[in-house]
């Protein structure tokens, strides 16, 4: 009897560990839907174990076979994330893009021979600008890391609404077609040229600008599509 209980506990433990790994991918999804989905999967795994035990397998074998049949937790988790937490993926993308913008400003105002020699305003502003930008950069890193915490789905929705407000701003509506590709090519060529001549900061700035320009429109469209839907 004791051994049966141990086996049942072990099975339960294995199932919970597996579901825990899956739920790790579902940050930012509605907790009720996540709980329902995990409960369905729990029932599925238990039923599978019971069936295999009835067929003569040991409890330990049955657990391993059930989990194996279910497939890798990372694959299941990622697939579920696209269905249950797609918004949070775009929130993360948006936050990462905003972070890249802060990094860009940080790079511009960082003390470089080019900036301090040629621009007295930038040189005068550096003592307070750099600490302020550093704080903003740290704040944005924290926001990016915490934007889709599992316990704050309301926060995710709030983030989406704030992005919607931001994205109405016409500065995000970049030109399309030939001009878009021309601008991207220009930025990348300048960036590569700067890196080639060891002007690393300006080179990184140009490449960050190109990445931001290329992806922000896609991210904005996806977020706006999600919000309006």
């Amino acid at each position, binding site marked *: 009897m004791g051994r049966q209980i141990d086996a049942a506990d072990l099975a339960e433990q294995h199932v919970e560990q597996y579901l825990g790994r899956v739920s790790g991918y579902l940050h930012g999804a509605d907790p009720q839907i996540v709980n329902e989905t995990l*409960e*369905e*999967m729990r029932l599925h795994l238990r039923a*599978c174990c019971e069936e295999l035990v009835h067929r003569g397998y040991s409890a330990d074998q049955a657990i391993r076979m059930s989990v194996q*049949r*279910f*497939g*890798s937790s990372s694959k*299941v988790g990622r697939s579920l994330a696209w*269905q249950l937490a797609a918004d949070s993926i775009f929130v993360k993308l948006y936050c990462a893009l905003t972070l890249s913008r802060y990094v860009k400003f940080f790079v511009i105002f960082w003390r470089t021979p080019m900036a301090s020699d040629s621009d007295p305003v930038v040189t005068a502003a550096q003592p307070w600008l750099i600490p302020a930008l550093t704080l903003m950069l740290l704040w944005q890193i924290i926001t990016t890391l915490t934007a889709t915490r599992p316990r704050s789905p309301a926060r995710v929705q709030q983030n989406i609404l704030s992005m919607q407000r931001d994205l109405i701003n016409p500065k995000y509506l970049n030109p399309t077609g030939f001009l878009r590709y021309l601008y991207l090519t220009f930025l990348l060529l300048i960036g590569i040229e700067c890196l080639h001549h060891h002007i690393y900061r300006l080179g990184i700035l140009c490449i960050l600008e190109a990445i931001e320009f290329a992806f922000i429109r896609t991210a904005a469209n996806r977020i706006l599509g999600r919000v309006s839907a």
Partner: protein
Amino acid sequence: MKEQHELKKGSTQTLILAVLGDAPSHGYAIAREIERRSASALKMGEGALYPALRALENEGFISSAWELQLSGPARKVYTLTEKGQGELARQKSAWQKFSEAVNSVIGGAPHGQTN
């Protein structure tokens, strides 16, 4: 390779719709029914069933409700909607055309040879 992956994903949804086309069912029973009907030839990762079910539900092809069972715990039972019936018919027709095309290439005579 990408096309193969997409085909597999699409196939899972078609198989689910086909099973639910006969009767409402829950996740575990759907997996077993696919295995039974294919004589164990189609053994997908059963975990893939749930993202596919969520996708079908989001599209409005199936609906779900928790139902008490005569024995055992409550189960989430999925039912094909009217929209889903239309989608099933469309996917069946598309699959038939695809398999006929593949069969005609595999089973057809080499180019330039006629019987």
